[in-house]
């Protein structure tokens, strides 16, 4: 019989036991970081902290934070804790100012990640008998390959569909009798639409579980996906800096948060303004320390995601702490169809296209089931022309540059001067019309 856990011992371990494992791993991590990662050693030295000062899991709060800027400053491999000869995989995601965020994995990291994803899948209710359709994008993005290795580790059959071509995907879902679907929630809805177009009745499919993540989604959206695809939709959390998908996963019993793989990723919730650790249950910025990663370990990495932690017992029997669905960001990052977008990146592109900083506004919406992003640019005298062709190529050029730079397709709309609303003289850069609550 299939177990309801991937790793019974860890997943149901009493807190005291779990904390002693966490402490041993934390002490080892801090020592390793101090010895091998110079930028972090300098941070510790600056406050006179030595690895031996960490005597309990609670001492975690003595350690300096790591922020996205540290990753950028040490681009590409400056924070790696192993020589490059040990690294077997590199992933990257877009950063705030052009340089991507780069992450590396040793062979052991890849295996660990596969195990954690396998655990997530079992937590969601999957077994090795499932046929898993993986529609996360394969490539530099951690979603596709990260999930792929986990599905294989579980022993299920993986269909590496990646993104795009929804019509073909729904045909495969039907023909292969896939039972589990992995994708962004908005892409799942897109697949539901494609089924309708092609004339496939979701009720006649074998899908039973969905593991959806990589973008924020609401409870309403969950209901919609469940209804339209006739499956049970679960939430998965991850970010490439910490590892990728699988950092936390919702179980079949909980609709109140995802179990964090806290034997590997030690969570904290802090006040984003003061950096102070908040009492359990309070909402704040999620911070993770990777306890076991070799190539790219991080201590107290500030995710910018807003969430909260729960320790109440869960009906599934897991003792692992749960995190609530991410309700927002502490920065202005937007997630468009699974791609991270910062307004500063759009600004950078606009500056590059015409050499001046135009007034612009980003309007994000969800049309049908897909996120749409429109960049409205005020046409100033510098780039206005009496020729239609020239204005059209300006719009097309901006669109292409954004696609090349950010990997996301946008609509560019040229608008009249002063038509973008300004509050206190400054234009509101982003209007997000998506309803997530």
């Amino acid at each position, binding site marked *: 019989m299939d177990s309801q856990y991937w790793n019974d011992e860890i997943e149901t371990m009493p807190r005291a036991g779990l904390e002693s494992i966490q402490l041993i791993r934390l002490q080892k991590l801090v020592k390793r970081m101090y010895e091998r990662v110079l930028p972090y050693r300098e941070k510790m030295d600056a406050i006179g902290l030595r690895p031996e000062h960490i005597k309990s899991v609670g001492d975690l709060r003595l350690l300096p934070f790591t922020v996205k800027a540290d990753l950028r400053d040490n681009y590409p491999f400056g924070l790696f804790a192993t020589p490059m000869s040990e690294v077997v995989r590199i992933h990257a995601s877009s950063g705030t100012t052009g340089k991507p965020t780069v992450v590396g994995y040793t062979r052991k990291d890849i295996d660990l990640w596969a195990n954690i994803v396998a655990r997530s899948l079992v937590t969601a209710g999957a077994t090795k008998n499932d046929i898993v359709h993986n529609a996360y994008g394969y490539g530099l993005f951690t979603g596709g390959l990260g999930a792929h290795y986990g599905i294989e580790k579980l022993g299920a059959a993986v269909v590496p569909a990646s993104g795009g071509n929804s019509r073909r995907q729904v045909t495969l879902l039907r023909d292969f009798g896939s039972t589990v679907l992995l994708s962004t929630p908005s892409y799942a809805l897109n697949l539901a639409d494609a089924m309708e177009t092609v004339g496939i009745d979701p009720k006649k499919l074998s899908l039973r579980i969905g593991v959806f993540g990589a973008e924020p989604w609401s409870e309403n959206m969950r209901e919609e996906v469940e209804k339209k695809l006739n499956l049970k939709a679960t939430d998965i959390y991850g970010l490439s800096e910490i590892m990728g998908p699988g950092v936390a996963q919702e179980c079949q019993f909980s609709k109140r948060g995802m179990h964090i793989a806290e034997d590997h990723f030690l969570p904290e919730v802090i006040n984003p303004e003061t950096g102070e650790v908040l009492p359990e249950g309070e909402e704040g910025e999620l911070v993770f320390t990777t306890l076991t990663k070799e190539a790219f370990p991080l201590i107290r990495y500030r995710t910018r995601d807003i969430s909260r932690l729960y320790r109440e017992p869960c009906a599934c029997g897991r003792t692992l702490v749960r995190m609530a669905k991410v309700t927002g960001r502490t920065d202005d990052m937007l997630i468009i169809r699974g791609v991270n977008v910062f307004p500063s990146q759009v600004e950078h592109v606009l500056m590059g296209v015409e050499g001046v900083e135009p007034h612009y506004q980003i309007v994000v919406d969800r049309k049908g089931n897909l996120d749409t992003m429109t960049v409205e640019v005020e*046409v*100033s*005298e510098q780039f*206005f*022309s*009496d*020729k*239609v*062709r020239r*204005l*059209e190529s300006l*719009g097309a050029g901006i669109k292409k540059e954004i696609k090349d730079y950010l990997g996301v397709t946008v609509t560019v*709309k*040229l*608008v*009249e*001067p*002063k*038509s973008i609303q300004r509050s206190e003289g400054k234009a509101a850069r982003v209007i997000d019309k998506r309803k997530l609550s």
Partner: protein
Amino acid sequence: MLVEQIAVFVENKPGRLAAITKILADNKINIRALSVADTADFGILRLIVDNPQKAAKCLQDGGFTVVVTEVVAIEVEDRIGGLATVLGHLADAGVSVEYMYAFVNRSGENAIIISRFEHMDNAVKVLEGTGVKLVSKEQIYSM
């Protein structure tokens, strides 16, 4: 032999053309000819007026994006084939046209074709060589 034209950026939304013509009327600027180039998302309004510099300033003050560009005004006899003859000369000389629009002069006899070419200098040279009648800016503004 070039004539100043003003081009105004207009979003495709109701009331924009009315707003522009109102600004011009309020400032006692006469419109000689106009044309709107339309795309799905925006339009470019091109105007020949009796005082292009003043018109541009008024519209800019009214919050519009304006450029003043030079175009050629060609007088064409109002008879069948009149325009075809002119275009034939240009095509023979390899001059490509960006856009054209026409209006009829006050006497009602001849049509004035406002034309924008990719290479204006070259176009003017070709036109002068063919004996086509070009209208000066003074003539246009005082029409």
